């Protein structure tokens, strides 16, 4: 068994292997080149030394360098743009939602934007209301862009390679607090295509659906419930948009019960969409209404006790599962 690695190493390998395989892959972002530190989390460490001008540290001008990614992509490059934190996407939304996502359609297919926007987020480090939000629903609500959210190092590698190879713009969301969590190493050189979920654990009683951070919680809760004789099937969406409904519906058709869990706030979130689609497709086969577990509908608070109260707990997930089993 190969030694475990963490997500930072996995992402670095993915970028390195993609740049070695394809000369049109370029990196743009704040501090991404080696003289500036190789990225705030060192994800791109060593790459500017190896690939020169293809790795560019930018001014703190998200609108300009995200737009530059759009332009370079139209001209045939494959830019990987790093937005340091997910909340900062708000300052370059116009380039992402009005341009990257729509240019293929608005040009009648004459141009397209094969660009990846890497970003990170997650509560737990007391970074407060502007450094920890999960905003994926904004982008899932925009046709034309895909959203990938890996939960472990091997998937981070494979999905980033898949995102870079994809012909559409991809928002690639990394979970900040689990960057250092070790996991199985990736199959280097192999991309995971976007739009395919993974059965992380098979079971027969209830389907637990998560992505990014919530997978760590689901796999822990699944063990606790297993000890009580509840056999959970756990699905890692991997790509939040487009949703792999085939995998979700096949599972829920079997179990008749589903719980969707995400760190993003509850209202108008990915959980609502997944729940709605399950109800639309399987209303008569469901044995209980689909449950949602998510963060509290408030900004991410600073103080530790508030920040902890903001995020769902393992007890919340267990309670939701038991609720579906009571029906």
């Amino acid at each position: 068994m190969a030694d475990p690695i963490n997500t930072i190493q996995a992402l670095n390998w993915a970028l390195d292997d993609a740049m070695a395989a394809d000369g049109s892959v370029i990196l743009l972002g704040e501090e991404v080149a080696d003289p500036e530190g190789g990225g705030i989390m060192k994800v791109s460490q060593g790459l500017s030394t190896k690939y020169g001008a293809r790795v560019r540290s930018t001014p703190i001008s998200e609108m300009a360098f995200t737009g530059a990614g759009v332009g370079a992509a139209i001209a045939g490059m494959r830019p990987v743009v790093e937005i340091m934190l997910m909340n900062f996407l708000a300052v370059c939304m116009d380039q992402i939602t009005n341009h990257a996502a729509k240019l293929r359609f608005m040009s009648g297919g004459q141009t397209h934007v094969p660009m990846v926007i890497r970003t990170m987020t997650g509560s737990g480090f007391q970074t407060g209301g502007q450094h920890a939000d999960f905003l994926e629903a904004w982008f899932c609500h925009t046709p034309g862009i895909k959203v990938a959210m890996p939960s472990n190092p091997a998937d981070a590698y494979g999905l980033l390679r898949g995102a870079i190879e994809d012909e559409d713009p991809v928002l690639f969301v990394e979970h900040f607090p689990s960057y250092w969590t070790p996991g199985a190493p990736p199959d280097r050189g192999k991309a995971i295509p976007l739009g395919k979920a993974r059965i992380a654990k098979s079971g027969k009683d209830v389907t637990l659906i998560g992505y990014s951070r919530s997978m760590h919680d689901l796999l822990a809760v699944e063990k606790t419930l297993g000890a009580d004789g509840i056999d959970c099937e756990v699905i890692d969406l991997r790509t939040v948009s487009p949703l792999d409904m085939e995998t979700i519906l096949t599972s829920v058709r079997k179990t008749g019960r589903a719980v969707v869990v995400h760190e993003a706030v509850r209202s108008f979130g990915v959980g609502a969409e997944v729940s709605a689609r399950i109800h639309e497709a399987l209303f008569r086969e469901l044995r209980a209404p689909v449950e949602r577990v998510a963060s509290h509908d408030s900004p991410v608070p600073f103080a530790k006790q508030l920040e902890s109260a903001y995020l769902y707990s393992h007890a919340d997930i267990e309670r939701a599962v038991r609720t579906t089993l009571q029906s």
Partner: protein
Amino acid sequence: MNAESPDAPTLVAIYRKMVAIKLNDDRFISQIKAGRLIMPYYSARGQECIPAAISVLLTDADYLVTIYRGIHDMIAKGVPPKLIWAELAGRSTGSCKGKGGPMHITHPQSGCMVTTGVVGAGMPIACGLALAAQLRGEKRVTVTNFGDGASNIGAFHESLNLAAVWKLPVIFVCQNNRYAEHTSLAKGTSTKRISDRARSYDMESAHVDGNDPVAVYRAAKAAIERARGGAGPTLIEATTFRFNGHLIGDTGEYMPKGEYQTALAADPYPRYRNWLLQNKHSTTAELEKIEADTAADVDAAMAFGFDSPLTDVSEITRDVYASPA
């Protein structure tokens, strides 16, 4: 004529582009008023000189990024008017199959890469097109057009800074038509000259009479040579005026009395025609032939547009992603 001035064939080529812009614009408006074209239309009547004089210095390999008031830029750059007509009429033969419309016309074969409906948003994208050319060692340049109003949005400032720091081969062309929608330059802009803002970014700049094709040509030639030679970007401010307001139907009540009439009296279109004849760069016969040929071209382009089949509604599912969902 010094070395920097265009020769007679070039001067006539500029006029030919101006005629195509003007006659198509006149016809778009008449078709809107007749109810045959249903669309928001931001006419560039009055601003013809600027892209006409710049475009004679460009090839199809050079990139253009323009804005909602940009059909003059597209025609000058070489987007076939018949594809524009079909696009505006919502036809399958339109440059974007009727899926973009007047604010998003795209035609990569002639270098028209992006047309945006968001003020200022084209400039960051132009930086990226230029970055791609720079990384590949290509000699092509990127021209990005915008109005005076766009010089007050963040994208302008971020893009000028980025282009200057990276010495990108971009020419920023501010077509200053004195009004940002309905707000005058003086009320919304801190500097008297937008070109002065280049100084903040240590960028070369030029301030020219945008109604004088020779002045625009000279400034553009220097900027394009600078960009092709790897010496970085330039901001050109070309002063002009829009004769049809912000949007067709604009009654212009926000303008001081007399401003419109004074500007119209100095309409650069007939002025340039007279200048060509007075300075013997062309003959009445040659110009009349250009005008007649162009009028026939407009008839043909319009007929092509209206006679083409409407885009099938199934197109709504195509081009959202590379593959249908």
